[in-house]
């Protein structure tokens, strides 16, 4: 099992330049809308043709510009699950499943039966896609792909059009259905929860380039790049003025940070997830942020606070304050946004009892060092 993709393609607003390889069976591609992730999938499927590069799947070369190889989509043996499932609207479920089968009539019928049973579509064979629920449509679309026995299955934002309740249900269903599939599955999404749940290995794309890749869990713990951290859901960022290997000023938060870990020299940003703050009542210690609420939002199971950042504390080196000010006024002002603090239900009780905390503690091990 392996996928090796190196492609370049000129798009309207940027150059798509993706290169990744993986032996993992479940690969996730995370990126904002319009970053080129769908284009990458379409290139693998042969729907779009890259300007340059090479695509190899399971040891089979699907595309190689230099060797002038460009298999037709029909010959690539790649299954593609579209966001809207793209079931043929005038064909019944069984005709949809049989649509791509090349075998004899008897073989095809047998295959269709198998798929209908496997994907719990019994009783729906004669229905048209318009008469199916969202979940049934997903199953039918997947049955149609699986009937064709593809080497790879590509999932193109399969859940982004669904409401929250259905989304969770269908995600679980899809994961179960794909469980015994031997081949590689690549899922593209802009939703961090989806890719986290699904993929073993993750590729993060921004503006047509893959900025980081690696094991999914590790990438969420250490996203390395600021943009990658943002896509994995990190809300708070601050520019870093590194004083020494264990001390730095977080310019946008207005506090000094002391660490036991060495701060790498190329660290340009600190990142801190909104859920990771620890409320502190009473005395101020190291790595704390004074709570000054700018606004708040109440959600069913959570409360979001948006806090003002602090001014640099007195003990920061004398001339740094002026540099901070000049930097802040010099076009960086928009970076100086509020700090997000999200409090989950378990902690809310304490908050309601004791009132707003005086400080928020940044746990050192949760602090992200980013480029």
């Amino acid at each position, binding site marked *: 099992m392996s996928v090796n993709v190196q492609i370049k393609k000129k798009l309207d607003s940027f150059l798509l330049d993706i290169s990744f390889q993986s032996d993992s069976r479940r690969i996730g591609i995370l990126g904002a809308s319009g970053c080129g992730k769908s284009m990458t999938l379409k290139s693998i499927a042969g*729907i779009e043709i890259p300007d340059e590069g090479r695509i190899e799947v399971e040891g089979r070369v699907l595309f190689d510009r230099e060797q002038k190889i460009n298999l037709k989509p*029909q010959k690539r043996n790649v299954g*593609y699950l*579209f966001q809207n499932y793209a079931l*043929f609207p005038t064909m019944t479920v069984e005709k949809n499943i049989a*649509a791509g089968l*090349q075998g004899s009539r008897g073989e095809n019928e047998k295959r269709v039966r198998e798929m209908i049973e496997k994907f719990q579509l019994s009783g729906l064979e004669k229905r048209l896609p318009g008469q199916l629920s969202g979940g049934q449509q997903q199953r039918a679309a997947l049955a149609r792909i699986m009937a*064709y026995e593809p080497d790879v299955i590509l999932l193109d934002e399969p859940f982004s059009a669904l409401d929250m309740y259905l989304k969770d249900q269908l995600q679980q269903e899809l994961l179960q259905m794909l469980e015994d599939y031997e081949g590689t599955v690549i899922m593209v999404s802009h939703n961090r929860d989806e890719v986290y749940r699904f993929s073993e290995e993750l590729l993060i794309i921004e503006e047509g380039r893959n900025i980081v890749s690696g094991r999914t869990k590790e990438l969420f713990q250490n996203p390395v790049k600021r943009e990658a951290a943002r896509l994995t859901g990190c809300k708070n960022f601050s520019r870093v003025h590194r004083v020494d290997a264990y001390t730095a000023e977080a310019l946008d938060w207005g506090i000094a940070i002391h660490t036991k870990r060495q701060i790498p020299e190329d660290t340009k940003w600190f990142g801190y997830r909104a859920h990771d703050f620890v409320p502190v009542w009473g005395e101020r210690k190291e790595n704390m942020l004074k709570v000054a609420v700018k606004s708040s939002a109440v959600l069913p199971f959570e409360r979001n606070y948006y806090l003002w950042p602090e001014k640099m504390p007195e003990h920061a080196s004398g001339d740094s304050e002026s540099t901070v000010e000049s930097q802040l006024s010099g076009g960086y002002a928009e970076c100086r946004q509020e700090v997000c603090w999200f409090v989950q239900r378990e902690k809310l009780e304490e908050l309601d009892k004791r009132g707003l905390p005086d400080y928020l503690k940044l746990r050192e091990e949760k602090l992200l060092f980013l480029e």
Partner: protein
Amino acid sequence: MEEIMQILKELEWSPLFISLKTGVVATIISFFLGIFAARKVVKASPGKKAVIDGILTLPMVLPPTVAGFFLLLLFSRRRPLGEFLFQEFNFKVVQTWLGCVIAATVIAFPLMYRNARAAMEQIDVNLIYAGRTLGMSDTKIFWKVIVPTAGPGIASGTILTFARALGEYGATSMLAGNIPGKTGTISQKIAMVIQDGDYLTAGIWVAVVMIIAFAVIFLMNLISGKKMKNVGRW
């Protein structure tokens, strides 16, 4: 009333059959040509699209007599193509039933083509991509996915084409003329009897045309209405 019965009894029915025959044949030709042209145009690059679309739609916008003029230029036996067709294949277009069919086809074709094209352009491209990744050939995708999905548009195109071909007058009168029993269509018959001031006979033919037109449209709506059960009702 008696007068009408008398006329009906003596009525020479050939215009009805000529018109129907012409309408059916012209519709069949337009159906396939229109779908074929629509497919080509949908796939073409924007520049090409504009030019080809313009040429194909022209017969609909021009006065039928202008189309008739060009058809005469093409098929007259005093012209190279007309002479060639006659010499080689013994094809006579001018003043023949073939002329009726060609005139009706040329005039009615744009309706078929435009409706088919509009319906095809509405189709979700993902359906085509899905077909390709499932290993379906482009021809199979076209006939099994695109044409059925564009069904309602194609059906309405067919109805309009038939209705237009059935009533064609201008180009037909120029190319095929009005030879009773041969090229005399209902429209031409009506025009002819009106010139004689025979409003009663003209009225009967008008009624015939209206009944046919209504029946066809009603029938087609019924058929497509049954097939399109899953299409929402407003």
